[in-house]
């Protein structure tokens, strides 16, 4: 139980940190921020890598989780980069 309290602490602090960091984003960057954040949520890939594989069902689930998280990661970062490259100053 101790470990969950520690991790819960990390969770709360990270959310506060996120709120502080992003609270004043110019509206120009709303879409890239969303798609960049979306790519970060592909961090589920790390979770997918450590799943158990005792049964066939688990193996299938792990494989699918890896694949879908990878689509999220690669697609998200590439499209964000593509978008940001278009923004130009006068």
């Amino acid at each position, binding site marked *: 139980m101790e470990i969950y309290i520690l991790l819960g602490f990390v969770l709360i602090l990270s959310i506060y940190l996120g709120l502080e960091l992003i609270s004043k984003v110019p509206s120009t960057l709303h879409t890239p921020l969303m798609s*960049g954040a979306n790519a970060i949520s592909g961090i589920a890939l790390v979770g997918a890598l450590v799943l158990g594989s005792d049964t066939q069902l688990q193996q299938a689930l792990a494989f699918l989780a890896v694949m879908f998280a990878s689509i999220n990661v690669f697609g998200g970062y590439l499209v964000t980069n593509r978008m940001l490259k278009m923004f130009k100053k006068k």
Partner: protein
Amino acid sequence: MSFFENISSIQNIIYIFSSILFISGIKMLGKEDTAVRGNFLSALAMFIAVSVTFINVINPILVLVGIGIGAIIGSLIALKVKMTSIPEMVALFNGFGGLATFFIAWSEFNSIPSNNFQYILVMITTYIGGVTFSGSVIAYGKLSETLKVEKTSIITKLFTTFFYISIIYLLYSIFITKIFSPGFDFYTILLILTLLGGVGFVIPIGGGDMPVVISLLNSFSGIAAAFAGLLLLNNVLIVAGSLVGASGLILTIIMAKAMNRSIGNILFVGYVSSASPSKSEETGEVKPINVSDAYLILENASSVLVIPGYGMAVAQAQHVVRELGELLEANGTEVRYGIHPVAGRMPGHMNVLLAEANVPYDVLVEPEDVNPSMDTVDVAVVIGANDVVNPSATEEPGSPIYGMPIIEVHNARTVFVLKRSMSSGFAGVQNPLFFKENTRMLFGDAKESIGGLVTEFKE
């Protein structure tokens, strides 16, 4: 569940390093000058976190195949997608992230969680991940306009009911674990209800409210990853997931504020309760204008403000709009673009379209910057926007959109409204702007009308 023991201290130290990179990355992503580098840093953080986890992988070849397939599909979509289709693509990627956490939770359920708290985490992670997935798929359908369901139809009501049942079932499943261990069928029902519930969550929400929903789903996908981190006792999942959850939440709040509505009102009420358009029926006639007369007025204008809306995206008019802007500038006119936060179908949608058309971002202005000096604007050109320039929001206390911050184009000297027909906006509210003394309607396809103006200028 015994993975924690396997993760060596070195791995955990590298996870901390990777978390720092994620934090710096998302911070830099919030500023124009550093955004590209910020995105790169966060990608680097991802690469490091994944690489260091790869050491533990039991079946590396299978995992590499999975990553490879995902990389190919993701890259193809990202490089091929048109800028006008960005909202639905973000919704789709978001759904895939949610689906991955849904599968993680499902797999962990089969690892026989060792205590009640783990059971509860499995249930919650399953639910958030599943709702993110099926909700995002519906959002994708709505944004790409392949899915059209009436808010009042029986299907909408059925799925909305499923949404409420799924929440009750989730609560039940959380509390019941304290009494006895749930069997397999018990969990299968949760899996199915979760997916149906996600559909029911998004299906009643209309197109104009999509910027809020898409931000919220973005937030959910991060929270789902953070919960998966709790479940797997993995720090980097918690940190990265929380950052995404926070950023999605901020965007959700910004969008809701820009509509002057609460998040609850947008998600569960919508505009349906205020459907009494007969009251605001405006008397008077609209004054149409043709392209050559519009050209004469624009040619003599010294300050022009362009207000784009979803209609510009639909007509794909952003390139001709930029061309017109350049010709006006060559003619000595100051050209700016007034961007309302909720114009379009996702936060910042208009900014991306104009950036694609090579409009520099420093000529884009927000409502509060441009409203005080609106009377110095000679011509305001409204392209496919409606509710964000509706003066009822400031003048008519009975209006459903009263109080919403708008771009007050009715205070400009002349207003051109480019519009296909006289239909009302997503709110179903009549727009008194069209009947104002200083408003001229330029009917027809926005791309053709602007194209006509461009030709006039070139001659």
